[in-house]
């Protein structure tokens, strides 16, 4: 899984009623994110780790950290598959 996911910088996006709408300019594909995925998108700055993003989700939705970790992992992977989030190689060390 991605260590520190980052938004794909080639994408155009806007927030509409608290949820993210993304346009892929290359192929004019439109992607709509649900509330949880939208929150992940906002925190996916290439700096925060997956665990840190999961902690934000847990706080936002008042759920257990382990459940938030599982949801975050699943969603981040799905967003990565669609090339909405980019894979950042884990920092060695």
């Amino acid at each position, binding site marked *: 899984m991605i260590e520190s996911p980052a938004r794909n910088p*080639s994408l155009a996006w*806007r927030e*509409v*009623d608290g949820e993210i*709408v993304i*346009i892929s*300019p*290359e192929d004019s594909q439109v992607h709509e994110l649900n509330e949880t995925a939208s929150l992940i998108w906002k925190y996916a700055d290439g700096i925060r780790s997956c665990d840190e993003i999961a902690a934000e989700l847990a706080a936002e939705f008042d759920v257990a950290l382990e459940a938030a970790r599982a949801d975050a992992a699943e969603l981040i992977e799905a967003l990565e598959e669609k090339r909405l989030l980019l894979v950042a190689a884990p920092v060695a060390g």
Partner: protein
Amino acid sequence: MPCDARLILGVGLVFAQPLKPDSDRPLQISIGSIPFSLFIPEELLLQQALKRYREFTAALGPGLPIVLRPKEQDEREPTAFSYDLDDASVILRRSGAEFRGVRHEYALDSLLRILLTMMLLPRRGFLLHAATIVRNGRAYVFAGRSGAGKSTVASLSPEGSVLTDEISLLRFTDGCWQAHGTPFWGEFRAAGRNDRFPLAGIYSLVQAPEDRVEAISKKEILRALLPCVLFFTSDKDANEALLQTLVGLIGQVPCQRLHFRRGTEFWKEVAP
């Protein structure tokens, strides 16, 4: 409003027909309050343009120069935008635009639409596949792809109320969203009206067995409108600007879905 009997050519000069612009006197038109100066060297094409854009001639002063040239030309300046359409192409530079390889008025019209989308973008405007009907001084916009019922809506509306039956120009001007007339028509094949009206609402057309207006979320209306927007660039910033414009529009103008059974009764739902 311009009238058929007089056509405006050159900078602030008004001539009676027939006249042809030369390299110093372009055909001046204005669409969506954006002035263009068309330099058309070919006589037949010029006459066709004079007829096609007769309602959109304007003496607003020099507009963005559009020079029609043969297909093959050397590149000298960097381009801000270019787009190929069949054998013709549009090239936008800081100094103006070029249309290359235009052989007939339909190609000219298509390239003008493409260029207009780029000119409207920084001006909070865009072109939309939609029919616009004016009722009590306000514009009702019915959006949809081919076959959605735009022409039917237009044909079922009172004579003289149709601002456009195919491609609508929406732009934030003078503090509000307005629909501008365009010369880009579909089945009605009219010359268009160079006029503008404040938006009353936008309706996404859906064919249905009943006439009904349905409130939908902003995300849903964005999903419905995006495929109807005429847009020709993969530039990220341009796409961001389009999204920003659309989000601004749907935040300020009532946008709904219209279930439409192709009869005049739909007006009772839209404007009771």
